[in-house]
């Protein structure tokens, strides 16, 4: 018997719990020859700002044991070019596209939310309050519960679509942040963004990244991400989307057990562009082999 794999995030219905993470999947089109986009639950596009952003100088990425650091600096085409050049592709795919976005003030966040709300091809919004690589933006809102609540409330007022808030792990208490976002009207929480890290070139006595620090992703962060998903899922009523080092169906199912309703696959798509599809198929197979009828029965089903 084929297990039921569909889940709901707010008003968003997903054919399965596997999405791709923002910044690791371009605008979807880049990966379309490697992965069947209609075999995954949803895909999240590269973080958008009102104006195009060039991003940071290079080197922007470096591999570290079991992971990678990036300091791209939110390079993106901006909302106007997104509408002109990227949205037509979204229309051609029968899979929800979630637009990730960020601003520098609550007003900017609200303006973006309202413009994205007007695009029929955008199924839901993921607000980034947690980029570690941009000094003036994101992170400020992601580390102070009051600031986070004001941004989320501004976005909430600007859209009726499902509003997902992507949380930073670079905080003292992620539960406090999660509760603030829930209180301000978020529909779901993405947990976690990258962890701030650093790599050093010993011989040159310099940081490897031009930005000095960057966001750590990949399997190296999975235990931390699992812990945070577990903490947040116990504390809020909202659905949680688990993110952090998911490379396999097993990893994804561990996040579901910890309390996630869905997951996002990030760095794995760089290593294997078909990763998200393979993980979705692997999850279904795992359930089928064990006679589990519905993936939702595993959400937060951690024992002990």
């Amino acid at each position, binding site marked *: 018997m084929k297990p039921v794999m569909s889940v709901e995030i707010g008003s968003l219905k997903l054919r399965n719990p596997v999405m791709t993470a923002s910044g690791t999947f371009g605008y979807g089109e880049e990966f379309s020859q490697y992965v069947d986009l209609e075999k995954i639950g949803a895909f999240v596009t590269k973080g958008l700002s009102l104006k195009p952003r060039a991003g940071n100088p290079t080197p922007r990425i470096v591999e570290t044991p079991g992971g990678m650091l990036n300091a791209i600096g939110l390079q993106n085409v901006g909302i106007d070019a997104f509408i002109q050049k990227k949205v037509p592709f979204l229309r051609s795919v029968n899979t929800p596209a979630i637009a990730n976005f960020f601003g520098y003030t609550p007003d900017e966040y609200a303006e973006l939310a309202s413009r994205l709300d007007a695009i029929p091809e955008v199924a839901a919004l993921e607000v980034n309050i947690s980029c570690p690589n941009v000094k003036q933006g994101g992170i400020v809102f992601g580390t102070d519960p009051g600031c986070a609540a004001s941004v989320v409330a501004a976005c909430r007022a600007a859209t009726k679509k499902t509003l997902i808030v992507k949380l930073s792990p670079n905080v003292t208490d992620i539960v406090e942040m999660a509760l603030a976002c829930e209180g301000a009207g978020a529909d779901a929480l993405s947990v976690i963004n990258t962890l701030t890290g650093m790599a050093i070139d010993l011989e040159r006595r310099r940081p490897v990244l031009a930005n000095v620090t960057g966001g750590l992703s990949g399997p190296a962060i999975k235990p931390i991400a699992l812990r945070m998903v577990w903490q947040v899922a116990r504390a809020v009523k909202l659905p949680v989307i688990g993110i952090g080092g998911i490379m396999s169906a097993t990893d994804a199912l561990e996040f579901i057990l910890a309390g996630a309703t869905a997951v996002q696959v990030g760095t794995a798509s760089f290593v294997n562009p*078909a990763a998200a599809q393979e993980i979705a198929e692997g999850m279904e197979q795992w359930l089928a082999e064990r006679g589990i009828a519905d993936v939702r029965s595993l959400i937060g089903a951690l024992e002990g």
Partner: protein
Amino acid sequence: MQFKAMILDNAEVSPGYWRMRMTAPSEMLAARPGQFVMVRVNPSIDPLIRRPFGVFDVGTLQPAYTGAAPQPYLEILYRVVGKGTGMLSTLHENDILDVLGPLGTGFDTGPAGEEKLIVGGGVGLAPLYLLAKELVKDSPVRLFAGGRTKDDVLCITEFERLGVECYTATEDGSLGECGLVTKVLEQRLDTTANKGQIFACGPHGMLKAVAGIGAKRSVKTQVSLEGYMACGMGACLGCVCQGAEHSSENPDYRCVCTEGPVFEADELKWEGN
């Protein structure tokens, strides 16, 4: 295209430099000179990220016996620089790799008959062999190959077999001219009326010098860049380089993986880089 490749041969061609031949789908035979592949060294998480390699050669092995299917293959030439390439060098015949490609833009081979000057530094020769193979079909081709020592000047015999006239230079004088290969290139350009065009791949300093040499003499110059990249398909935005008009006020970053790795030298910003 993503495919599993079986290693057919993996041999050290010079100290620290390896040449690997692997099976490939027939679509790989259409790879353009200058395109590259992303190789996953092993299925574990260390190393995690794929490594990019220029396509050194593609071809078809004749059947081993009557009636057997011909086997298309792909070759890469690589230098052992770190953990990933170190592991790659320990692999053997019949080991399996996961490969993405061909990726990126290739060289524009230009009009027939015109003299083609190829400049390669060290492992930068990797994407230039397939280019030379293509160019010799309809043009006279000269190769300028440089390196620190004779050990860093690779596969010259293969280029000679194609009928390419080869010039070499080493910084220690152990092979060819003593000094930089760009000096030999300049000498050639300054003694011929037939300036043709330049194709270069190698360390950044060499490319910068070649770009200057081409610009000064109004010779069309294409360069193939290296970039530190995670995906190879324009998603990670790790490998960007600066366009000619780039400034902090008007940024112009180009993806080495999808907009390159081959660029016209005058499209890029060289000063300060």
